């Protein structure tokens, strides 16, 4: 390597061009943006206290479970009634009617359904494949609530969940 010491010294005397002063300002600005970006990223990474979609799925699953339990209980009652009928054929009518009443007391009847549209967004026009007619795309964000009621006991069951619907409305030219 000693053979090259002279040329190395000559090369070291050559000074590279200096960066423009604006470069420092630009880097400073970029670093500030990074800091702000990193801060906002950590903020946005915090879990939202209201995750409506998960809540909706959870409620829907809970409702399905309750309904399934109610139906299976009803089946069990029906089975019990049949056994009772077979074994007690000579039972009197009032007893049978009381058994029927006890079965009907477990029934939940639909009592109401509401659909509250809390946001509508116009997503503009689009063209369906193969169609020349434009369609306006509307997105509805809604909250649907279903209610069941037991007329005998007065107990009620209510399930509410968020939903989203996209509607395409044909736009006619005038």
């Amino acid at each position, binding site marked *: 390597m000693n053979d090259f010491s*002279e*040329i190395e010294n000559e090369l070291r005397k*050559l000074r590279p*061009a200096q*960066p423009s002063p604006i470069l420092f300002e630009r880097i*400073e600005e*970029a670093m500030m943006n990074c800091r702000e970006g990193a801060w906002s990223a950590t903020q946005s990474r915090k879990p939202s206290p209201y995750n409506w979609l998960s809540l909706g799925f959870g409620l829907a699953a809970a409702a399905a479970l309750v309904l399934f339990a109610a139906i299976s209980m009803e089946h069990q009652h029906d089975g019990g009634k049949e056994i009772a009928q077979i074994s007690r054929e000579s039972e009197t009518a009032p007893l049978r009617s009381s058994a029927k009443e006890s079965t009907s007391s477990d029934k939940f009847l639909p009592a109401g359904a509401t659909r509250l549209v809390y946001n509508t967004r116009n997503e503009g026009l689009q063209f369906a494949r193969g169609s020349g007619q434009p369609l306006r795309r509307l997105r509805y964000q809604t909250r649907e609530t279903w209610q069941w009621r037991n007329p005998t006991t007065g107990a009620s069951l209510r399930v509410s969940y968020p939903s989203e619907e996209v509607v395409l409305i044909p736009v006619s030219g005038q």
Partner: protein
Amino acid sequence: MQNLASHEDWKSCFSEVAPGLLLFARQWVQSAADAEDIVQEAFVKFWRRNHKIENRALLYTAVRSIALDFIRRDSRRARREASAISETDEFIEPQFEFEDDTQRALAEAIDVLPCEQREVVVMKIWNELTFAEIAGVLGVSQNTAASRYRYALAALRNTLQPR
């Protein structure tokens, strides 16, 4: 151990490495402004990832990778510019600050070195990287990096020898 992320005075770190980094970036782009864009992106990326300044080889790797991406991205623009340059006599900012004609001749000799030799010389002379670091940046063995350096110096010496 200095950490750029926690080191408030990043400017002093940058002012030390900036001229060498810019020269390194200029191996791939002709314009000084493009080289500054590349260096800015690499330095900010390096800083964001909390790398220590001792791992500066990573900074050169970033500059190299961004410069190559830049070339790929702007290949169409580069072709247009190349044709424009061939038609007009466009001014290209010099990579060095010359003091005399010998230095100018040396700079011109560096400019015509094969790219793979030139980048080793730039990293070794003006950025003071070790052969191990250079090998890491280029993804070659230390021996390869050292032999490219020797070939480059031999070529430069031959060019500058009085005839």
